[in-house]
């Protein structure tokens, strides 16, 4: 489980890492060209400058993106530019500055979920688990669409906290299943947490809930046998 957690924390960062310069994307090229055309007529338009900055970041052209961001700041105000500046900081691996920038933006636009998610993931990268958890909880409170991953990532962070982390993680997973329905992805993680806290009967009970979909599979049957074995071998520790 620990290896999974480490892998998760590492991989969670992938979406916020910068794309390499070699990631040539023809459509991005076209869009950059298009925004450049727009800017030739209105070079100070902050909206178009930010559009091009985001495209440049996707292309890995960080220096060009910064130039557009600074130009947008000169003709707009720093708060409205802060989200894209945060993306630039992420691309440059200046994570604390990225967090500050996302925070600045969220101060004005508190429901902007990409900024919340990016800040949550950046906190996690920096090992600021409690702050990351706070952002994930906030994300779940404002986001219209809940991904199973939000609950899974939140639970994985919570599980690392002492002394009640696993309990918190299980509550988050159960909340996810209350909102999204019984899901293998969340219940499987919950089973691992139950085993980690030696709640074998609970693990078995959760495993049984997956029977309608997985009951005929060899994997489910083998796991059931294993869990029954553990249940009879060990008494559950008190929660």
């Amino acid at each position, binding site marked *: 489980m620990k290896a999974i957690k480490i892998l998760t924390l590492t*991989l969670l960062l992938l979406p916020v890492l910068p794309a*390499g310069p070699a990631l040539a994307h023809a459509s991005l090229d076209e869009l950059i060209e298009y925004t450049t055309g727009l800017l030739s007529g209105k070079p100070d338009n*902050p909206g178009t400058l*930010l559009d091009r900055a985001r495209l440049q970041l996707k292309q890995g052209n960080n220096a060009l993106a910064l130039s557009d961001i600074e130009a947008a700041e000169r003709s707009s105000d720093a708060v409205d530019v802060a989200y894209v500046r945060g993306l630039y900081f992420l691309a440059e691996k200046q994570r604390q500055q990225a967090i500050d920038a996302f925070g600045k933006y969220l101060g004005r*636009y508190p429901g*902007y979920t990409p900024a919340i998610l990016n800040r949550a993931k950046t906190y996690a990268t920096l090992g600021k688990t409690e702050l990351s958890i706070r952002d994930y909880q906030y994300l779940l409170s404002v986001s219209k669409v809940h991904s*199973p991953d939000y609950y899974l990532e939140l639970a994985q962070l919570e599980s690392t906290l002492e002394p009640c982390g696993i309990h918190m993680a299980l509550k988050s997973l159960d909340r996810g299943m209350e909102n999204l329905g019984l899901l*293998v*992805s969340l219940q499987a993680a919950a089973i691992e947490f139950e085993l980690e806290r030696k709640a074998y009967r609970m693990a078995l009970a959760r495993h049984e809930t997956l029977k309608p979909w997985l009951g*005929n599979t060899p994997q489910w049957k083998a796991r059931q046998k294993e869990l029954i074995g553990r249940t009879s071998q060990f008494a559950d520790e008190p929660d």
Partner: protein
Amino acid sequence: MNNTSPQNSKYHLVVLFCLVVLVSACGNSNSTCSDASPKTARGPYLQNISSTSIVIKWRSEQQTISRVRYGSSPNALVAVQEDQSIDVDHEVGLGNLVPDTRYYYAVNDTAETVFSFRTPPVEGTARPSRVWIVGDSGTADKNAKNVRDAFVDFNGSNATDLLLMLGDNAYDSGADCEYQRAFFDMYPATIAATPVMPTIGNHDAREDGGAPYFNIFNLPIDGNTGGVPSGTEAYYSFNYANIHFVSLDSETSNRSPSGAMYSWLMADLAANTQDWTVVYFHHPPYSKGTHDSDQPGTAMADMREYYTPVFEMYGVDLVFSGHSHNYERSFPILGHRGTSATFLESMKTDTGNGRKDGDGEYTKPYNSVNQGIVYTVAGSSGKTRSAPLNHPVHYLSMSKLGSVVLDFDGDQLNVTFVSPDPAAIDYYSIVKTI
């Protein structure tokens, strides 16, 4: 919010880009493709089909109630399902349908026009089924139209049971107005008769994280149409006849083995008992087209490194992707995880072309695991561009417009690349053996 926020600047860009694209592509359009424009009527279109239920959606020009009249004869639409709430966007679910039956229907805005669809047979029952696959089709231009017309000519009067879309369904940002042109106006006859089951591409996700995509499509998240519930429309599975389809999200969801999609896929494929399994997602694991799957740290690399072992472990037959605007079709292969330079001839489980009139059909046992999988990049339904096209897993690679047709019939599957260019030919078959 003032007009310099990223959301507004993005909106600004989308509106302007739409204007340029649409005016140049369509020529006769005076639409500004803006969310501020009056909404255009669209549909009806079909979603979330099972052997006993279907969802019909459409948009009306005026706010009205939602009413569907339907029946098993075009002259007797005797059953009615309606929702009294007033809106321009309509969604009506029909239940208690009879499997493997043609139904006729009309929606309130098009009461004079009768459409039809056919319910699938009971899950697991083999029936000749045709599936049309378009990839990166969202250009809303002459190319997309030519690809569509080539399919219509190929299809003739045959029924098409499903339409799969491989992502980038509406350029450039997947905005609602772009979907109008690239999807609703492009395929009106098809989508009124054939359920559409898409996957999300990078361009579809540009507009508000894919909000228009998720608003337009109703996708199965609860296992009611077969498969294990995913809890999200971003990735899902369903059964049609004796075929299991899996739509993965290679763009917006966590692709890592610790993510929810991965564990869901493992469970879903483990529980699958259908004769055929088709998986589709946007980013190709093997491509030397307009995108290079050798690039590390990309969605393409993730899908190859993390997901192809799962496909092999659970006996997937075919994998379709888009993203590269080319057609690339592999030999049946097994065990290739690295870059193209690490591919070995021994990873081909069949070195032939898969053609009955050529090297012979590909064969694989029913319900087998660790057999060869044919991977296809079919992202040329809206545009093509020259590219190296030299990935060694592929039997054939070409920069030709086109789409793919799957014809399932019992133990046989025939796959055809259908192009407006008669010189662009590919076809092959897979036969399941006992």
